[in-house]
């Protein structure tokens, strides 16, 4: 049996990306098996909102539509995030080893991998260490303002955030790593007049002075994940039939659940 699986994915729409992750969580819940690390990005850029957020209250949907942004709902917690100029990851696995049973154990284990990968890419990253203290808890505030215990920072500014969903037997953790400017533009689409996000966050490009490090960072994440959780990965190939089912779910949910305009 593989120690863990990798999906080094191509850019996709918000609904497709979320449908794939939902499939992976159900797979872990129903079948167990080895952890899956998925690396991906969004094309077109998309705003994802937390599972319980009210899209209309949090986001100016008309402005987002004019800008050509998808607005989609995550199955994980947290708040709104603009996926632009960033790398997204998901980790899905049964509860328990190698991540630990507890919530904090899981967040810390995965944060450790991301910090190591960022350091390998010459970013002086650490867990915690946020210098600004918004303490903001309004559901309309941007995800990147939040200062929870396991956020990853560089130079006192947030560079990566994460959120989880836990079922009875499995979990999924979503995370976003800021590569270059882009995500801070979410202020344009948030209700509530948010300003100043750019001063609270940093990016791989800003920290290293080097553009275009996404491929290198993907490689470091895969290497560090393997060192921590079990060697070389096996590629998880989603069959055409599974992909078709996922795309069907995505299409359906793009107009229902993920559009944020109807009942969850």
């Amino acid at each position, binding site marked *: 049996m593989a120690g863990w699986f990798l999906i080094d994915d191509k850019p996709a729409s918000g609904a497709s990306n979320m449908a794939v992750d939902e499939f992976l969580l159900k797979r872990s819940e129903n079948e167990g098996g080895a952890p899956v690390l998925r690396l991906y990005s969004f094309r077109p850029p998309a705003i994802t909102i937390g599972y319980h957020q009210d899209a209309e209250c949090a986001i100016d949907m008309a402005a987002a539509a004019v800008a050509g942004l998808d607005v989609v709902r995550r199955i*994980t917690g947290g708040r709104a995030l603009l996926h632009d100029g960033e790398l997204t990851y998901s980790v899905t696995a049964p509860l328990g080893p190698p991540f630990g049973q507890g919530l904090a154990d899981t967040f810390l284990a995965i944060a450790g991998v991301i910090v190591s990968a960022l350091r390998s890419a010459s970013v002086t990253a650490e867990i915690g260490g946020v210098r600004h203290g918004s303490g903001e808890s309004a559901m309309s505030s941007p995800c990147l303002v939040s200062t929870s215990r396991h956020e990853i920072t560089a130079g006192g500014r947030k560079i990566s955030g994460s959120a989880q969903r836990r079922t009875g037997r499995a979990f999924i953790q979503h995370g976003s790593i800021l590569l270059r400017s882009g995500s801070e533009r979410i202020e344009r689409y948030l209700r509530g007049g948010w300003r100043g996000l750019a001063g609270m966050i940093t990016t791989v490009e800003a920290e290293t002075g080097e553009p275009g490090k996404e491929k290198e960072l993907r490689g470091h994440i895969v290497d560090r994940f393997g060192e921590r959780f079990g060697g070389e990965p096996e590629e998880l190939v989603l069959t055409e039939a599974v992909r078709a089912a996922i795309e069907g779910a995505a299409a359906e949910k793009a107009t229902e659940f993920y559009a944020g305009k109807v009942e969850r």
Partner: protein
Amino acid sequence: MVPEECTYTKEHEWVCNEGGVAVIGISEYAAVELGDIVYIELPESGSNVKQMDPIGTIEAVKTVAELFSPVSGEIIEVNEAIIEHPEIVNRDPFEEGWFIKIRMSDPGELDNLFSFEEYSEFLGEQED
């Protein structure tokens, strides 16, 4: 509710049997581990559930956790106060912060759950 007289699940829910009605909530361990709870989603009263059916979700700042019914039966009451004010659960998970009441169709299912002592042991193993 007397913690020592309740039963528990490995998903960190507590169940107190009050004359055939199961009062259900989440343990202090779960409330502390989740952190500040910001949203709770529960089913309507009157619905029937089976043991381990999903019955809702609970969201802390960064985490959505699914809730499962520890017993089978009819949901006869939902704590509307915690839906309006989820922070009650962080403050008082064992009394004011109860979630739902279920009229049990098979109280024998409680035998499948942890006793207080077994749950305490389970928590000890989690922390090892």
